[in-house]
């Protein structure tokens, strides 16, 4: 068998545009391509995607591969598994990187099974070992309590990359590269089942992933009413409200607002954590925040150790004065 070569990133197209994860995958891919001295390919699936494929060239791909197909959320994941597996069989890359997204987390394990290799999901760091030339795949384990570095001993080495864990590649429109359509036909037998509906829950206001300021509440808030004060502060600071697992488990607020390992990964400029103890599973979703402020009456709360500023006190007594002073400072 010929030796596997090259890095292939599986980009994503949403509503006809390149999804943000794609530039991050290319950012990671460019670095690996330089370290391995092997070319970087970008694979995209969609309808009429010539132009977005061109964008991946500007973002660092040496070659873009396009497959004609529906958007991921408009199809059964089986289709994407079959398409990407066929592309990998044809291109024989040494490294395949997907995003840890709706698409990547579903596709990567089965892609690995089909290609008789393995996958390391939710990586926050990818680099080449200068000695062995193997891909070192760094990821949180034990709910974020520890960090593991994995090496894959089969080919290709498949990883998914956690969103916002690397710098997105910057576009250079002067770069050139070829766009190659891959004609892949998927047998009907590869698709087991059908998609009935795709439902998108519209979020009110600012998306957590886009927010510059997040005021987050945990079990210490004590009930749904307590979040009123958090909303007031968030709206004053032009931000939005997030939660930890406890308020979701208790049914105070919906899981769509959950920040953490199994929820949303955020990276605001300011993260104000109220009544949050700071379990690693939660920190996995917010440790990329620039400035973390903790308000908690338990002085031993883990989150104080990972915060820039803190107040040990009851949020019910702290928040009114804090909101008032912020309002005063912002209006002056």
């Amino acid at each position: 068998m010929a030796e596997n070569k090259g890095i292939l990133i599986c980009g994503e197209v949403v509503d006809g545009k390149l999804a943000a994860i794609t530039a991050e995958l290319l950012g990671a891919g460019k670095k690996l391509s330089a370290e391995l001295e092997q070319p970087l390919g970008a694979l995209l699936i969609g309808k009429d995607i010539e132009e977005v494929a061109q964008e991946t060239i500007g973002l660092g791909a040496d070659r873009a591969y396009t497959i004609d197909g529906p958007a991921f959320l408009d199809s059964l994941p089986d289709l994407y598994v079959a398409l990407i597996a066929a592309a990998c069989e044809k291109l024989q890359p040494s490294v395949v990187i997907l995003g840890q997204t709706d698409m990547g987390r579903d596709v990567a394990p089965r892609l690995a099974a089909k290609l008789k290799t393995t996958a390391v999901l939710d990586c926050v760091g990818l680099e080449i070992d200068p000695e062995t030339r193997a891909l070192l795949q760094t990821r949180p384990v034990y709910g974020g309590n520890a960090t593991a570095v994995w090496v894959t001993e089969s080919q290709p080495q498949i990883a998914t990359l956690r969103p916002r864990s690397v710098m997105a590649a910057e576009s250079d429109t002067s770069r050139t590269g070829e766009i190659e359509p891959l004609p892949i036909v998927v047998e009907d037998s590869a698709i087991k089942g059908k998609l009935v509906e795709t439902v998108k829950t519209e979020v009110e206001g600012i998306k957590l992933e886009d927010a510059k300021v997040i005021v987050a509440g945990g079990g210490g808030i004590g009930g749904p009413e307590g979040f009123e004060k958090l909303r007031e502060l968030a709206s004053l600071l032009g931000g939005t409200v997030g939660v930890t697992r406890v308020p979701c488990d208790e049914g105070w607020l919906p899981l769509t607002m959950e920040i953490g390992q199994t929820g949303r990964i955020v990276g605001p400029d300011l993260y104000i954590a109220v009544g949050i103890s700071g379990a690693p599973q939660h920190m996995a979703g917010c440790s990329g925040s620039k400035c973390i402020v903790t308000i908690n009456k338990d002085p031993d709360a883990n989150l104080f150790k990972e915060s820039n500023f803190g107040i040990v006190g009851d949020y019910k007594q702290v928040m009114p004065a804090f909101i008032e002073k912020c309002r005063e400072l912002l209006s002056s």
Partner: protein
Amino acid sequence: MNIIVCVKQVLDPDIPPAKFKVDSASKQVVPPEGIPPVINPYDAQAVELALRLKEKQGGKITVLTVGSDGADKAVKYAISMGADDGFVLSDEVFEGSDSFSMAYILSKAVEKIGEYDLVLCGRQAADWDEGLVGSIIAESLGTSLVTLAEDAEVVDEGLKVKRVTLDGYQAFIVPTPAVVTVSNEVGQARLPSGLGIISAARRQIPVWKAADTGIDPSLVGSAAARRKLFALSVPARERKCEIIEGETPAEAATKLAERLREAGAI
């Protein structure tokens, strides 16, 4: 409806971070003393979904786990929640197996049980958080698969499953037998009943060795693993926290706002 649920025993994910230790030299987690392992919470939620389906459809729930001494506790926990039956898959040759070998071991046991409509797994194990086994079981059994389920119901053509997405959900209808991995959106797992605990405690959980399910020893264990651990450490992500104090909570709050303003954060 015959449902098989795969469960794993893990280090309690809710232990305080200060109690979590690793030995970086041997690349192993040091189990904290006095804190017993628990059933993986996502697996308990898979048992929960199985029980809800059984309540509507009738049928039987069989629980499988791979592990050595004490692994039967996870099976017994699931039985105390209401599962009917269970097996422990245990053999020296399983030591050091990766997710692919684990999926192979579980698939062989599923095939031995034979009659099944649905295999449920938690979305990931709360220890290594790999999120691979369920999907690979579907590949090796050649069944349909839906990952990250928040709900499932039996329909004429098979199973209707809702898959959690970042901004909502997708609903699929898949033919049975199917493998479904269960996400936390399914909701909290019920607690074992008193009677369930008593009856589970009395049960002897049968152990199947590699030969009992026809496992090829060359496909399991550390020698067959497709990945290896290069390094394991506890992340150092501490920040220097400036604790703002005041005579009253309100005074501290006012000072905090001023400090954040000075620091350019607001």
